[in-house]
């Protein structure tokens, strides 16, 4: 999926994360994370971000995250939303997911 513009999802409320996805002219993935739980979950969040981007076939993007203690599933949801919005409102591939 190609990131065509800059888009945001999520909020700065507790248990949420505000995520901005933007094109990366220099190619590749850049993750800029500010988290209230950096010490405990910083690595975890970065791993999730990379995985979600891979699932969505995003190869070049700048991802800025302000995390307020969001659970893993919230980070996923917010990132998916931001990516789809940044890809000009592309639809999520519901069929392509595993639903076990």
């Amino acid at each position, binding site marked *: 999926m190609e990131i065509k513009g800059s888009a945001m999802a999520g909020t700065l409320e507790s248990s949420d994360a505000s995520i901005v996805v933007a094109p990366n002219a220099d190619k590749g993935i850049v993750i800029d994370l500010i988290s209230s739980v950096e010490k405990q979950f910083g690595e975890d969040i970065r791993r999730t971000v990379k995985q979600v981007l891979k699932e969505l076939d995003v190869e070049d993007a700048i991802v800025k995250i302000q995390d307020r203690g969001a659970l893993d599933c919230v980070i996923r*949801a917010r990132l998916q939303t931001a990516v789809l*919005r940044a890809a000009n409102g592309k639809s*999520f591939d519901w069929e392509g997911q595993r*639903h076990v």
Partner: protein
Amino acid sequence: MFKLRRTMMYVPGNNPSMVKDAHIFGADTVMFDLEDSVALNEKDAARLLVYNALKRLDYEGTEIAVRINGLDTPYGREDLEAIVRVRPHIIRLPKAETSKDVRDIEAIIEEIEAKEGIPVGSIQLMAAVESARGVLNAREIAAASKRLVGIAIGAEDFVTDMQTTRSLDGMELLAARSQVLLAARNAGIYALDTVFSDVNNEEGFINEVKHIKQLGFDGKSVINPRQIDVVHRIYTPTPQEIHRSERILKASEEAARKGSGVVSLDGKMVDKPIIERAQRVLSLATAAGTYELEGGEAIAY
């Protein structure tokens, strides 16, 4: 034992801190909302949030419902694509006007179930009527699908449609509530009452819950966890009711053991509806923790 649906708690679908553990407050059903509580430009975000939450979080057995947007909106179809795949117990359609609304949704659900290898029919439905037309068609709506487990009345839109406002005694809703109840009982499904929005008016809430319980509703939609215990308390049978129900069931078991088709208690005949009601009383009492149900035959709608 009856599946109790005394309380169905609304949880705004785009609120992560509420979505993550809405079930811990003890509502019989938790309903994640993608419809009225979500702004139009956040429909995609809420859908993905509820989708990911249902996929990954354990709601520890609590019945989960998701209220989707209507198929007449740009979001309804996409909501179904997402939500059916994470298999909530119930999908609730808003603003049902005709039985066709139910059947249209059912067709899409069936299609997705088949595609994903989900046993067809496993996702249940609930419909809400929120307009004069919907209320008038409640009878057909309630009987429109085998998947339907309940019909709810949504009062806020309804009173607007009726060109009136809500009052504390609920006079303006009496006809509609009665209609919905008749439709539910006719179809053998649950009847669920609308929300009471003023969370701080506990007395008004208590009066309304007593009122709708007396009318015959199985439960009420709640918008705040603080309302849950109030409803459950009102739906908890009294010791006298429990005692009488126990005696009725004992008499019924006795009759069954003797192979007698006629159940009698204190010289009076006890017929089937009374036995069912007694079972329901004991189910409610058990859920409220005031009674230990021993064995007992499971009956449900």
